[in-house]
């Protein structure tokens, strides 16, 4: 194997990694938000995305709605699921041992997977849209990946602005620093948690919009990217959205370049090895402050 910086395939791979990193960054955003604010890990996060993908699929193919409307429906659906998950599952155990939250959201993962298998069968489905690809020099890039990348960056920027500039966003950041003082500000912590859960769900729904353009839908699809999303969050420092953003690109490049020099599976192996090594060096994550 030859190493050459003028190799267009190498550059294509690097840029592919970058595009994939953007999607990973978006996927990690909702999970990080929930953890950072509510201090709960939604183990079933990827399954919410899976349900969002099905929602979009059925709205688009069975009900014949335009794609943007189907996307909006998917986002709303997962936002509602996020709020429901919080209200029904998280809230009753919010003040118990953290292990309970892992177990119970882990349980929801299998429940949702089983539910999807029963309702939709294990058949692979696809919305059947091809956006084609663009050519730059000798390099080719699928348009769907470019769209996904741009949407991810825009979503990250919008979320940042929302958290930084609005009353609600400031309250969401504040509640993660001191929950008990919030009522004195006229803020109901319950309401903020519910809104945050819906927002986290909405971000998962947006992730579903992007993934539905890139991959087939099946009940176990959550397992194919759920662990990576989770590791992106941990590597960045759970709850630290900026850290997660950086970690997403690191992971994506590992996978892309590993796939370029060997096989795609080796990319994943390298990424996981890197993750494990990093966990020994910086257990709190790249930018994390917690232990």
């Amino acid at each position, binding site marked *: 194997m030859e190493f050459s910086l003028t190799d267009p395939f190498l550059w294509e791979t690097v840029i592919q990694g970058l595009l994939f990193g953007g999607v990973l960054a978006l996927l990690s955003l909702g999970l990080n938000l929930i953890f950072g604010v509510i201090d709960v890990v939604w183990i079933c996060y990827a399954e919410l995305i899976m349900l969002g993908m099905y929602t979009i699929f059925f709205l688009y193919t069975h009900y014949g709605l335009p794609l943007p409307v189907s996307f909006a429906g998917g986002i709303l659906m997962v936002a509602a699921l996020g709020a429901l998950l919080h209200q029904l599952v998280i809230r009753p155990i919010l003040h118990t041992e953290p292990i309970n939250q892992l177990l119970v959201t882990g349980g929801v993962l299998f429940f949702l997977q089983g539910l999807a298998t029963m309702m939709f069968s294990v058949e692979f489905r696809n919305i059947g849209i091809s956006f084609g690809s663009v050519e730059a020099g000798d390099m080719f890039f699928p348009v769907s990946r470019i769209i996904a990348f741009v949407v991810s960056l825009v979503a990250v920027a919008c979320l940042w602005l929302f958290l930084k500039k609005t*009353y609600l966003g*400031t309250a969401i*950041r*504040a509640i993660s*620093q*001191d929950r008990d003082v919030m*009522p*004195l500000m006229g803020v109901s912590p319950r309401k903020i948690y519910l809104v945050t859960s819906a927002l986290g769900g909405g971000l998962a729904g947006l992730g579903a919009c992007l993934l539905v353009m890139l991959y087939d839908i099946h009940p176990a699809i959550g397992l194919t990217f759920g662990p990576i999303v989770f590791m992106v969050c941990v590597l960045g420092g759970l709850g630290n959205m900026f850290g997660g953003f950086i970690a997403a690109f690191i992971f994506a490049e590992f996978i892309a370049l590993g796939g370029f020099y060997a096989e795609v599976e080796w990319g994943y192996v390298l990424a996981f090895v890197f993750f494990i090594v990093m966990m020994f060096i910086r257990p709190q994550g790249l930018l994390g402050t917690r232990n």
Partner: protein
Amino acid sequence: MLRLENVSAGYGTFQALFGVNLEVRGGEAVAVIGPNGAGKTSLLRVISKVIPLNGGDIAMEDKSLADVPAHRIIELGIAHVPEHRRLFPRLTVEENLRMGAFVNGARSRYDERLAYVYDLFPHMKERRHQLAGTMSGGEQQMCAIGRGLMSGPKLLLLDEPSAGLAPVIVQQVFDLVRRIREEGYTVLIVEQNIQQVLKVVDRAYLLEVGRIKMSGPARDLLENDEVRRAYIGL
């Protein structure tokens, strides 16, 4: 303005207040003094409904607070500056102040209130982009009081504003309280620094083990032999 009648409150099975009667009239500054563990903080916390009211009644301008949840108290014109200041350490000074104006009624007047607070505490304006957690204790107290003023309250509850501060800073904090009074706010302040606080308020209540032991004009309590012996150490 604020009236407590036979108020009992506590945490779980622990009762902190036993049949407390207390009144704050409009424009007044009133102190609640007493030793550590007397229930002073609980008194403010039950007014804010952060802890439940177990007996008696609390009324703000003749409206009972019994059924008002904690996060709606501020809408009635009561701002609570809690013990240990409780700023959001990783938010900037200005973001902390913004949180003080979270309630709907206050948002529309945010710019006006912010200008007012910066006018009152020019030092906070210089520090507006600094993270609150990186400031000194005195500065944090200033920011906490400013955050309390952001909602434009009628009544300001101050919980131990001088606690944990260096002696020089303590003096500044009491000067600050005096200025807040001059601005026309009604103030209910809880303090362990009895000698100092009695110099800036009109009236005071002495709280011991959850019961009001004594009350009267601040001057009288300051000259009362029992108070002087037990709490001022003279």
